[in-house]
Structure formats: structure tokens, C-alpha cells
């Protein structure tokens, strides 16, 4: 973080959202400035006009009650900056361990790792809240510091988020919500503050779980920001710029890999019948979770595998996912061709559906739940699951032997 100590305490005019500063040396258009009052509170502003030796600053931060005479304006802000050299510290980058979310379908099929970034493709913000609430619960049981950034939140959704937050008895310092009626720069503020808070906690040595709701609004803000700065871009050009911005934000977390686990939501997957263009951003993430229309987990997500022997459960999850995916596809095709399903196939279909829609956090750990699924898999399929996997979960299950 860098704060250039070039400043001025000569504020000539102050209005609700902007001020005129005299003799702020070196200020140029679109520069960020920090405004500090006598109590030490600081706000971020942006230079929107320069005339000779005075400049017009618009205040981007939220509500403020400032007095003209006590203000100091510094050029630059405490915005985060990427390191000049690529971060090479191996020990920090390579901590790899599985983050047990205690959501049975996620743990069994899409095991998350500490320090990974996860892309959640939901259908709507409201429907995805169940998953995020469950993830929050998992992060808390895993002793991580939760941090939630919600952009462009409507009143009801904000209430809902606060209800979840209060339910776990969490403090407000990890909650960053911008209202849908806020101005652009006010709306972007939670993003900056949230990122700062997460990185600050991570440098203190705490594990952080960062949630961002959602990419759709962030992308809209980005386009507005570009338009206000005078770059008129086509939709595709703006999309590319947003990809760069998002990627840069994620690189800031990368320096603390292993400490900050990030989950970001894309709330609308379909726009007028077509898949959202932002869906392509999933390439920037380590893992992808896709929610179906009813808010349940779909089998189409993925997490990359670890190199062999790092953690068996990740490898098993991949195999299990593949089996379930093939089988459910086959069942679907047969249902469409109106073939009768056998007794055991019908039972498996029901069990899988139940398993995938059970997103609420439960106390029982995953091996038993996987065993339930495996035990219901038709005979012809179970032969394709490697014996080592069956043995692993078979032995976890106490007395129950292999079929």
C-alpha cells in the first residue's frame, strides 16, 4: 500500500458530494484523493475537473459530515496495489488442504480447498443465498474469518443477508453491503473496503473466507465507471475490460494463497434465454459450482484435481462425480425414450436427487453420505468404481460390508 503524501488543507468550497481544493500539487484528471477530517476519519474522492491550480473532487465514499476548515486532502489513496515483483514466496503459495464445508454434496462431489477461488453460477441472488449461508456455516466451523461483499443489494435481499449474519452472531466488520440506490462510487466502496479487510486479516495470519455477491452487478458498475470516465466502449470491449479488472482483483488475493478462500456468485445465468456472457469468467476460478433452477447443486461443476497422492478425497470425488454424471445422463435419456427403469435405478435416481438438493448444513460428515449413494448405485455401475474407494468408505462405515 502506498500513500503519496502530497496534500493540501485549502478547501475552498464544500457541497454534499464534492469539494474544490486549492493548490493540490500534481493532481490530474481521475486521480484518487484521500480526504481526512480532524477526527482522523478518511474518505476517498476522485478528481473530476482541474482548473489551473484548483481542482474539483467528488467524494466516492458513503455518508459524511465534514467541516470545510478541518479538512486535509491527500493525493493518492490507500487503494491496494499489486506487488512490483511477482510474489514468489513458495511457502505461502502452496499450502494445500481440503476445506470441509459440511455440505454433504459439496464435500463429496466438489471438495473445496483452502486458498482456492470458487465461481458459483446461481439462478438468482435470492435462490443462491441458501448455498452461501451453508458455506458461511462451514467457514465458521472451519475457524475462518467470514467477509461478505454484497453489491447493488435491494432492500429485501439486504435484510435477508443481515438476518443470516445475525443468526450466526457475527460482527458487522465483515459485512460490506452497498444499497441499490447508492451512487456509483459509493456502490463500489464495499468492494474496496472488503478486499482491504480480507487482505489485512490474512496478513495477520487468519484464514479468510471472502464472498462476493455478485459478479453481475460488479460488471455493470465497471461499465458505468468506464462511461463516466469518458471511455465509450462496446459491450464486448467492456466485457474484456471487466475480465481484466476481476482478474487483477483476484491476483491481489493470490499473494496470500492458502489464507483467503474466495467464493463469487454470478446470479443470473440466463439473460433473455441466452446464457450470460459473464459465464465465460469461470475460467479465472479454480472451482465451479453450478446451481439448478430449484437452487440445488448440479453435477456439471468441477474442481481441478490435485497431483496424485496429495489428497485422496479429491481424486475420489472426481471419480464419483463422473460415475454419477454418466448414470444420471443415461437415466434421463432412458426416461425420454420411455424405457422402463428398473427398481434399483429408480431408487438411485431418487437418492441422488435427494442428496443433491440437501444443501443445508448437517452434522454428519460426508463418508456416510457417500456410502449411501454408493450403496444405491446399480450393480453394473458399482463395478466401475475402484475398489480402493469402496474400501475407504466401507471401512469408515463400521460394520457394514461391501455388497
Amino acid at each position, binding site marked *: 500500500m502506498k500513500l503519496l503524501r502530497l496534500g493540501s488543507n485549502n478547501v475552498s468550497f464544500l457541497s454534499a458530494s464534492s469539494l474544490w481544493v486549492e493548490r493540490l500539487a500534481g493532481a490530474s484528471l481521475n486521480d484518487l484523493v484521500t480526504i481526512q477530517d480532524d477526527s482522523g476519519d478518511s474518505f476517498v474522492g476522485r478528481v473530476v475537473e482541474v482548473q489551473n491550480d484548483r481542482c474539483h473532487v467528488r467524494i466516492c465514499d458513503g455518508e459524511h459530515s465534514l467541516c470545510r476548515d478541518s479538512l486535509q486532502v491527500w493525493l493518492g489513496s490507500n487503494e491496494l496495489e499489486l506487488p512490483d515483483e*511477482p510474489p*514468489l514466496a513458495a511457502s505461502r*503459495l502452496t499450502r494445500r488442504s481440503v476445506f470441509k464445508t459440511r455440505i454433504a454434496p459439496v464435500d463429496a462431489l466438489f471438495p473445496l480447498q483452502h486458498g482456492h477461488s470458487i465461481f458459483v453460477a446461481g439462478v438468482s441472488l435470492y435462490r443462491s443465498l441458501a448455498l452461501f449461508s451453508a458455506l458461511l456455516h462451514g467457514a465458521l466451523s472451519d475457524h475462518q474469518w467470514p467477509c461478505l461483499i454484497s453489491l447493488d443489494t435491494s432492500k429485501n435481499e439486504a435484510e435477508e443477508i443481515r438476518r443470516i449474519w445475525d443468526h450466526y452472531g457475527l460482527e458487522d466488520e465483515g459485512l460490506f453491503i452497498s444499497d441499490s440506490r447508492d451512487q456509483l462510487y459509493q456502490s463500489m466502496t464495499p468492494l474496496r473496503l472488503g478486499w482491504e479487510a480480507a487482505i489485512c486479516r490474512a496478513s495477520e495470519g487468519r484464514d479468510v473466507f471472502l464472498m462476493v455477491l455478485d459478479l453481475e452487478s460488479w460488471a455493470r458498475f465497471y461499465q458505468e465507471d468506464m462511461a463516466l470516465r469518458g*471511455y*465509450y466502449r462496446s459491450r464486448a470491449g467492456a466485457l*474484456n475490460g471487466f475480465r481484466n479488472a476481476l482478474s487483477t482483483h*483476484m491476483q491481489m488475493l493470490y499473494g496470500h494463497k492458502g489464507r483467503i478462500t474466495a467464493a463469487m456468485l454470478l446470479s443470473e445465468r440466463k439473460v433473455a434465454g441466452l446464457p450470460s456472457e459473464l459465464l465465460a469468467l469461470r*475460467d479465472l476460478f479454480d472451482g465451479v459450482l453450478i446451481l439448478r433452477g430449484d437452487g440445488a447443486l448440479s453435477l456439471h461443476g468441477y474442481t481441478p*484435481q490435485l497431483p496424485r497422492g496429495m489428497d485422496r478425497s479429491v481424486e475420489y470425488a472426481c471419480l464419483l462425480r463422473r460415475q454419477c454424471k454418466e448414470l444420471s445422463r443415461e437415466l434421463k435419456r432412458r426416461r425420454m425414450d420411455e424405457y422402463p427403469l428398473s427398481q434399483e435405478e429408480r431408487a438411485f435416481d431418487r437418492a441422488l436427487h435427494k442428496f443433491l438438493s440437501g444443501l443445508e448444513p448437517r452434522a454428519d460428515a460426508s463418508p456416510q453420505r457417500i456410502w449411501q449413494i454408493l450403496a444405491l448405485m446399480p450393480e453394473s455401475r458399482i463395478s466401475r468404481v475402484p475398489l480402493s474407494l469402496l474400501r475407504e468408505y466401507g471401512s469408515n462405515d463400521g460394520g457394514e460390508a461391501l455388497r
Partner: protein
Amino acid sequence: MLGEFACTEDNSWYGQVQSHNGRAVRILPLDLPEKIRPGEVLHLSGETLEERLARTEPGAVIDPLGRRIIKIGDVSMGNLSFSAVPQRTAGGSFWGLKTLGEFMNLHDGEGVALLGAPPGGFALLFSQIAAAQRADFLYIFCQGGYHELYRYCCAVQIAGSAEKCTILWTPPWNVPAMKTLVPRALAYLTERSHAARRQLVLIDDLHYWLESIREYGESSGEPSLPDGYPYTARRQLGELLDLKSLPDGEDRSTSLLIGWRYEEEFSPLAEHPYMGRLPRFMRTGIILEELSENLVPSADSWGELSPAGRCWRRLCRLTEECDEDFRHELEALTELFGELFVEYSPLSFAMESENQVQWSEADGKALLRLASRPNQKLMASVLKIRAELHLNFRECPDVRRRSFIDWLRAQEEQP
């Protein structure tokens, strides 16, 4: 001098001379405008891109201005011990495409395009390709952040060729103008006189690059054509795809492998103004479809099919046309063949040894003969070999391929 670089005193801001009229010089900024302030002194360095690049040494990550970022060998492999797996550097596939490359006949000095949306993105897929390739010299154009860059660095170290590789890196926080320098930089690097014999250029996402060129054009005020792209995009794309060159008298060639991200549902091949041009420039294009987490070349791919590719196409057609009685078993056979010879898993970074066992034309004919005259006994044995291969030798693809071919020959010999 045109094309000369200009920089501030502390070397923190770069620009390039675009034009001059004797008194005033027009400079293209290659860094964020916030970094330069009025009143700062700009130096003309007197160096062009080529002169700067001439000084770079192999085995490093450089940016398009020729500045060295890090050495590839300096990137630690973390706590992953790959040294347990001996990496052979001779023989094997040159392209590193593994089963995807066996689907088509690929030759030195041609261009191959991979199209689709592989899970984990093209950066993951291409880093695996970088780990498996056996080129004499490798150029990688990386457009990702630290994460992707380190993936490539590790992959190149796994391949044992850290000293025979140059990574050109334009991270997402660079201004789009930086990306316009890439075609010239790559063209210069690949055409140097001391170039290696077989060179390979990997460009992980051409679509991303093209969108950045569009963004650059828009922000510099270029009017866009009706297709939505500015004039520069077409010329730049041509320059980039022209990197490939067929083997010359001394057998030196440059092969080009590009990725193009597209979603099946909403950007079909014909609709994109530049994607439709790809088959003109690239001899082979493999369109990837996702089939339960594995990638399979789809029917729209273009290029010259290999024996395995031809066999796979016909087998799929046979499966669609066959009787209901044998459909299940034939599907099992197709699936097994696909799994062994066609499918590619992009999510596993497991170190599988290179596929030495190849599918031959004769085997293909034998398999199709069997599949076109299915009978009860044969079908039972298909299910048996499938169950066997699924349970055993999961870790050794070559053993499974060999035993499948052995099984096929045994079926042939039976009356």
C-alpha cells in the same frame, strides 16, 4: 525514430513513438496514464522492440517490451514432488496434445486451433500441453495473472525444458496497447537466425487477445467496422497466425497451437467474424465437447483424420444405426474405445507417461468389422473386457491400450 521507445527517468512509464513531424512527436502510451504526471521528462531511448528483444535470454519470463520479469527456473515447484516421475525428453509426441493430437494427423510447421470451453479454462489445458510437449524450443504467450504464469512455469520445468523456453507475459493489468506489440515480438523471436530446429508457439486464448485488440482500438478512437472490430484487428490477427512456417532446408519449422474460447450455446462458429476465418489460416481445428468431464473432438472439427479418428467416427455412426438388441453393448464398445484413444481429461494434472501404443489402420478395420456384425458372444466379451479395463491399470493408459488391442486381435482369430 518510428517505433522507438520513450520512458520516464525512473523507467516506470513507457511509450512508443508512433509518428513525428520534425518538431512534435506522437507517443503511444504503453502504461497507465495515471503513472505519468505533467512536467515529467521523457527520454527517447533510441531502441526499438527488436533491439530490446535481441538482448533477452531464453529461460525467462519477459513482457512485450523485452523486460525480464523472472527466470522460469526460479519459480518453485512448491511442495509437489514431481521428481519422482522421470521425464523423458526424447521421443513421444512433439505437440503434447496426447489423445487429442492422435485424433488428427498433425505435421510440423502447421497451425492447430483448439476451440471450446474446457473446464478450468485454456490456461489449465495449455499448461498440461506445455508439460507434455517435446519441442526444441517453446514460446508461450501467457495472458493470465500470477496463477496462470506459475502454472506454465511449473509445467515447463516438469517437461525438463526450462532453458529452452521463453514465456511472453501480458498480465490483465497491462494496458491493451501492450498486447498489440505481441505479434511483432513473437515474429521476431521465432525468426531469429539461431533459432532451434522445431519450435512450438502456444497462445492460450486467442479470443481474449482479439477482444483486447478491440478494446485498444476503441479506446484509441479507431472507428470500428460493421463486424464490431477496428481495422487493426484483422491485420494483427493475420500477423499472429502467420507465425507458423513449414520446415525449411535445414528442417527448421515453427508450429502454432492456439486456443479459442467459445461457448457452444451462443457463439456458433459461423457467427463470429474472425472465427469463420480460422479454417483458412489453420489447417487443423479441434472443436472440443465436454463429455462427463472429459474432452472429445466433435464432428465439426476440421483437418486430416488419423486412423484412430476415422475409426472413432465410423464407430459412432455404427452405434447410432445398429439394432436395438445390441445397442447397449455397442455403446459400451464405443465408450471404451473413446476412453482409451480419443478422450482427454483436462482436470487431472497427473503425470501419465506419453502414449507409446498407437492405434493402427489395420486394427481400425478389424474393430469396424467386428462392430458391424455384432453377435451375442462378442457382445458378452465386450462387457467383460470393459469391466476388466475399468478396474485394472487405471494408472497406466498404455497398458490398457495394449490389452485392448490384444483383445481385439484375439477376437479376430476366433472363428
